[in-house]
Every structure is written in C-alpha cells, then in structure tokens.
C-alpha cells in the first residue's frame, strides 16, 4: 500500500500529529525498532508517552492508531502529489543526517532524486533587494545552471523568486525549500511559481502540508537550504535579514560561503559586508564561484557598439544618474536613452529609477 514500508508508515503517522513536539517525536522513535503495526508501535512507546506527556496524550494517540486515520492522511498526500520521505528512507538526504534537529519526515513535491544530488548550490538574498541585486542574481543563476549546478533557495519575493523564475526560464531544475506546509505558501501569490518548480525540480517542506508558516520556521528552514547545498551564495541581506541565518548555518555545516559586497550605506547590503568582514568569500562575478569548483566558465562574447562602450566606460566608477552620464559624454539625455535601453536589454546595465549601474565588472579592456 502506497509504497511505504510498515516502519515508514509508523513514522509518517507519528509525524502527522502537530501537537507533539519534535523532541518527543525524536525520543519515541529512538526507542522503537522493527515495528509491524501502528498499534505495536504505540505499545512500544507507551511508557515514554505516559511518563513524559501523561495519560491523556496517550489515549488521544491511541484513538487515532488505526488504519482509517492512516489511510486518510496518506490519501491526502497522494491526492496532492506529495511524497513523504522519512529519515529512515533510502532517499532521505544524507546531508540532513548531521544537522541540528534533522527533519523526521520531509514532504516533497517533484523530483525527489534531487535530494541527494551533489551539484546543489544555494542562492539566497533579501526580499527587498535593489534592482541591481536582482539583475546580479539572474546572472549568477544562469552561469551556475550552465555549469550544471542546481540552484536551491526559498520562495520569498525578491532574490528567491528571481532564482526560481530564472531557473524556469533556463528550463533547469531547482529546489525550493519552504517554511510552512506545502499547502500553506508564504507569500501565497507564488503558488504558480511553486507548481512550475515542482514540474521539473523539487519543492520541500519539513512540515505536514496543513501546517501554517510561523515566523520562527523561516530561519529554521534556512538550515535545510544550507545543508542541501555544497555552497551558498548570499546576494543581498541587511543587518537583520533572515538570509544571515542561511550564512550562519552554511558556516556551521562547513559549506562554501560566497557573498556579494556592497558599497557603504546600502541598507540591503550591510549584512553581506558584515559576512565578508568575518571571512566569507567575496564574489562579484559568477566566475569566482565556477573557478572555485574548477569549472571552466564559458562566458559569451559581448559585442558592444562604440556608443555602448562609451557609456560603460562612464559607469566603471560606479552607478550614475542619467544626467551625470549625459554630461560626462556631453550629450543630451534623450540622445543616450536609446543606448541605455540597449545596454539594459543586453543586461549589461540595470536601471534603478533614473540611475544606471553595471551588472558586471569584466568589461574593462
């Protein structure tokens, strides 16, 4: 039935009780081996349950310890296309075994074989990022995908969503780890995005589908992103950004941490600079990451016209307002607007209001 072993069914059954704390679930599972049925399983853990949680909890669990209840929840998972993978499954990610509080069951939608892939790479950033940070995200993700990495990220607006949309555009797989249950996305409007990701890639949660996301779950979720990936890129993040948790976990788990630097005073980059101060690897071009892993980067030749080159030269010293660019080139503003649009289409510059900045630093002759 449902392709689960008896033991796995017991674990899934136990994990479905939202009222039971993680530590109790872990404790119960430690003392239990080779169960043949849920009733037997409950019997084995009876002593612990009554001692730690009281008679009431035990009798509540007992009343649900039947086939009907189990079939009910399994049916829900099946209908929604959710695969539950317990920590005793073969395909449970090996990288999760050594982290704090490894999830007892992970709920997946999509290609579960990705969980143990060796080429996962985390890309995260803050929800409110500058346009230039988003452009940078797109460029990094494209290069990483070209080099056969699979991006891992969350689901929030800003950088996370950019990672996923870029991966979809590039027809690549991607993994999105979400904070609540799979039925309770935050933000809700990314429903379609999640559906698209799960078509080729994978969406993962460590909670049963009906669990609503709560604030504490977001930093906790970040440990899974770091654990899955061989390295993590932090594109943007303020001093109090949740992104910094991902970085912390990455350090703790010994993953390679790459961080994009920002100039002083940029609020959405202050956290990044702080990470660099503490020893993270600075990166301002995808080649940094690729060469770290010994991958040849195959960047395309950019053909810039004379006018385009002129503007790029002006922007070498940092992002500039359109009026400054025009006065530097001694041209009228509307004369350089078409060229700026071309550069924007070529993704060489990014527009933020009327300020333009370069997205790459490899253009100098």
């Amino acid at each position, binding site marked *: 039935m449902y392709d689960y072993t008896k033991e796995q069914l017991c674990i899934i059954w136990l994990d479905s009780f939202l009222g039971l704390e993680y530590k109790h679930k872990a404790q119960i599972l430690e003392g239990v081996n080779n169960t043949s049925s849920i009733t037997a399983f409950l019997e084995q853990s009876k002593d612990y349950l009554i001692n730690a949680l009281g008679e009431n909890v035990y009798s509540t669990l007992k009343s649900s310890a039947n086939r009907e209840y189990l079939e009910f929840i399994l049916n829900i998972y099946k209908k929604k296309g959710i695969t539950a993978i317990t920590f005793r499954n073969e395909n449970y990610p090996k990288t999760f075994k050594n982290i704090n509080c490894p999830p007892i069951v992970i709920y997946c939608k999509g290609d579960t074989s990705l969980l143990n892939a060796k080429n996962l790479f985390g890309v995260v950033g803050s929800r409110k990022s500058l346009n230039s940070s988003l452009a940078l995200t797109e460029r990094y993700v494209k290069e990483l995908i070209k080099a056969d990495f699979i991006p891992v990220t969350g689901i929030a607006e800003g950088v996370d969503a950019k990672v996923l949309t870029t991966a979809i555009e590039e027809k690549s797989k991607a993994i999105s780890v979400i904070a609540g249950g799979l039925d309770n996305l935050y933000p809700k409007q990314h429903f379609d995005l999640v559906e698209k990701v799960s078509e080729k890639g994978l969406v993962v949660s460590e909670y049963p589908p009906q669990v609503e996301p709560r604030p504490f779950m977001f930093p906790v979720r970040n440990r899974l992103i770091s654990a899955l990936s061989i390295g993590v890129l932090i594109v943007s993040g303020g001093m109090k950004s949740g992104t910094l948790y991902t970085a912390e976990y990455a350090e703790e788990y010994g993953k390679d941490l790459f961080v994009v630097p920002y100039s002083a005073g940029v609020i959405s980059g202050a956290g990044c600079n702080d990470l660099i101060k503490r020893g993270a690897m600075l990166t301002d071009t995808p080649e940094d990451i690729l060469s770290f892993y010994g991958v040849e980067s195959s960047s395309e030749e950019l053909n810039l016209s004379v006018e385009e080159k002129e503007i790029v030269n002006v922007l070498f010293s940092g992002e500039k*307002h*359109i*009026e400054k660019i025009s006065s530097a080139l001694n041209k009228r503003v509307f004369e350089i*607007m078409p060229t700026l649009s071309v550069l924007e289409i070529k993704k060489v510059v990014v527009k933020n209001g009327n300020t333009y900045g370069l997205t790459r630093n490899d253009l100098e002759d």
Partner: protein
Amino acid sequence: MIAKVLTYTLIGLKGVPVSVEVDVNNGLPAFEVVGLADTAVKESKERVRTAIKNSGRQVPTRRVTINLAPADIKKEGSSLDLALAVGVLKSSGQLIADTDRVVFLGELSLDGSLRRINGVLPTLISATEEGYKKFIIPKDNEKEASFVDGIEVLSAKSLTEVVDHFSGLNPLTPIEKHDYKSKSAKNLYDTDLSLVKGQTVAKRALEVAVSGGHNLLFVGAPGTGKTMLAKCIPTIMPDMTFQEALETTKIHSVAGMLKDSDGIVFSRPFRSPHHTATTVSMTGGSASLRPGEISLAHNGVLFLDEMPEYSRATLESLRQPLEDGDITVSRASGSVDYPANFILCGSMNPCPCGNYGSSDRECTCTPAQISKYKAKISGPLLDRIDIQVEVDSVKYTELSGQTLGETSEQVRQRVNRTRLIQKERFKNDGITTNADMGEKHIKKYCKLSNECERILKSTYESLHLSPRARSRIIKVARTIADMDLYDDIRPEHILEAVSYRHS
C-alpha cells in the same frame, strides 16, 4: 390676455427653448407656475413678484397663471426669472412691445436688478443654431456672450432697463463683439518649465506625452516635485483654438465656474481633485446632471496626485472616458453627454512608505503592502497610460540645479509643430493625436522595420514586458519619431519609448 415670452433652459450643454406663457385672468388673486419647474424655478415667482413691485410696476391683483412650455421638460435654475417678469408685464398690459424671437435670460434680484446666471454661452450657441438672433442677458454675463458670432446681444442691469428698452424710452446698445485671440501663455499660468530644476528625464517624458497626447504616470518618493511637473503640462500644451476654448467655456459656464474677468476660458484647465473625490464628482451627475472633474478638465489636464489612494471605483470609472473622450451621464432625471478629452497625469510613490528601491533609506513596507498598493491601479487603466516615468529624489535635483532649462514657451513651439504633423496624418481618421491610435491605425501608420521588430522582440524577452506594453511602446515611439521629424519609426525611437516604463 395671453403673453408669450421666449427663454432657454439647459440640459447638459444643450439649450432647450422654453416658451413662458402668461395669462392674467379674473378670479381670486393668485400666482401659479406650472410646467415641470424645479425648486429654483418654483421659487422664482416670489422673486418675480417682488422685483416687479420694486421696479415701480404692479403685480396684477388677479389670477396669474404661468405655463412653461413644453411642459414635459424639466426646467432648471434661476435664468427664467426675467422671462417670467416680462411675461407678467406684457400680459397685464404694462409693457406693449414686440418681443417675438427675443430670448430673455436672467435671474432677478428682489430690487429688480438682474443677476449673473450660469450657462449663458452654451445657451446662446444652442439658440443661435436654432435661428434666434436677439438676446437680452444680464450685464454681468456680457463678456462670455461677446464671443458668439452673428447675433445681437443686449445686456441690462435691471428689469427697468429691459422695460425701458422695449418701450423705446431708453434703448440699449448691443454689446461689442470680441474676437478670440489666444492670450500669450506667459500670462496665463503661474508656473513655467524652466522653474523645475533638474528632472531632465521627467521633463523629456512630459514633452513626449504632451506632443502625442499620451497619458502619463510619475513615480517617485514624496516631495520630489511630481505636482510641480504636472502643473507644467498645461504650459506646454498647444494654444487653445477658439473651438477648444468654446467647448471648455461651455462646460465651465454650466458648472458656474467662469471667471467674470475673462468671459471665456483662455487657459487649459488643470484639475486636481483630492483623492477623497467620489465617483460622481469625477464623472459628473447628481440630480442636476452637473459636469464632473473629467469634463471640467476637457482640453486640459486631469491630475490625480497619489493615484493609488483614489477609490477603486473612481479610478475604474475613468476607463471609458479615456477611451472615448466623452461621457454619458445617465440619471433618473435624464441623460447628458459631456465631452471629456483630457491628458491624465497620475502620480504615485514606489510603495506606501515611499522608500522602495532607494539604496540609502529603508523601506518599511511589507511585500504584501507594496503589491496591494500597486494593484490599486488596474491593468486596463494602466494600459491607457502610455508613459510611466520615475521622478528623481531631491539630491540629484540639487546636483544639477545650476542650469536653467528651457522655458515652457520654447517647448510649446515644438509641441505645436509635432501636433500639427499628427493632425495632418490623421485628418481622415477622426483622431488627432498618436495616443488616440487604435490597432488599425498602428498597423497603418507605424510600420516597423525588421530592425525595430527585432529590438521589440528582444526587449520583451530581456525585460519581461507584458504583451500589452507593445502598442504602448509603438505609440510613444511614433510620437518621438514625429518630434524628430522622421516619417518612419527608427530603432532609437523604439528604444527611448522602452525606457518610459516603471520597473
């Protein structure tokens, strides 16, 4: 004896002749007005009685019956007073004169003097079309009447003057006819484009918008001068033609907003209703079918500051007028067409707190708040706004504040030229500006070279534009090409048009 006197009432902008029939008969003294009169007209019998008495004439102490024909049309306002009084005097034999084909307009004061009324210009125009040539109007209204051709208008200060004129005692001289000459814009507006420091991009966008009649949206943090820029739009719009001035004056006259000194609206209207405006105040309506803000902005600018703060219904009500250039206001009391051809200029912050996208100030809005704020302006409405431009925060303005830019006068001359090109192009299409183009016109007048098509295509892919943006970009590119005096749209025109969008 029955006396008939002619006057006019207004339904919307259209004058309808009303024949005031007065009969003085034997019976108990009474003064009855019949014929679907509204409150202001019903009350006029008291004004008329007192005014006649205070002008040294007598109100007949007999049964006076007044009928306003045709009886099935609702008569409004106080402009019928004078006709009523003349009718009573004629009917009671106190005035013997031929008043056939003379239209009497005016409100009476208790002392017998004539007061200013609303809607004289549209009334005269309607009456002239129906062949009436002679009018008596209050002295205070003579300015606006002086712009109508081929009629004889006499203006009087009081009922006595009117009576004296017809009895031959003291004839009035017809008012002097004024020729319409557009006033120099310098004296019309209290702002000028040269006073706006910096904002080169926004100013250029402004010129493109006005040149092609495109609606536009300013996006920028609070206090960056969005309102100031918007106020400059009328100053660079083409000079009002007589026809345009007349149309606008008619609406303002009906709304009672005409200034005494001018008589006609010389300056393009700039209407900026507060965001608490109701839908009815915007579109026009209420029981008396008054024109709304969009009609008052006819031939001018409707500025909606903090656009997302307006109620959804109010904003959506703009869609049809933006499409058609007029609005049909329908209420239980009737249905009226008002013209509403205006440039819509909106302004909004990038997010509720205004700091989104800024690198040095933190935005305190949640993503949900931001998307809710942006979603207040619906897609179909945004489709009608061809140009979206970001307004710089003050620090850049300070940087480049040294150079004094072009004056509105200089820009307007270029706009006049660009508008002329469009008028010539569209002379057989029933439209006047590039912004009015439909798909059919775009196909006909905006042929794109392969190069341009290629650029448009790569723009979509690279900048993730919605398919709806396509015709917007092409229309704006057409205008920029016109400004550059090119027959064909060139790649740089498309590329500049591409940059007028809010990311």
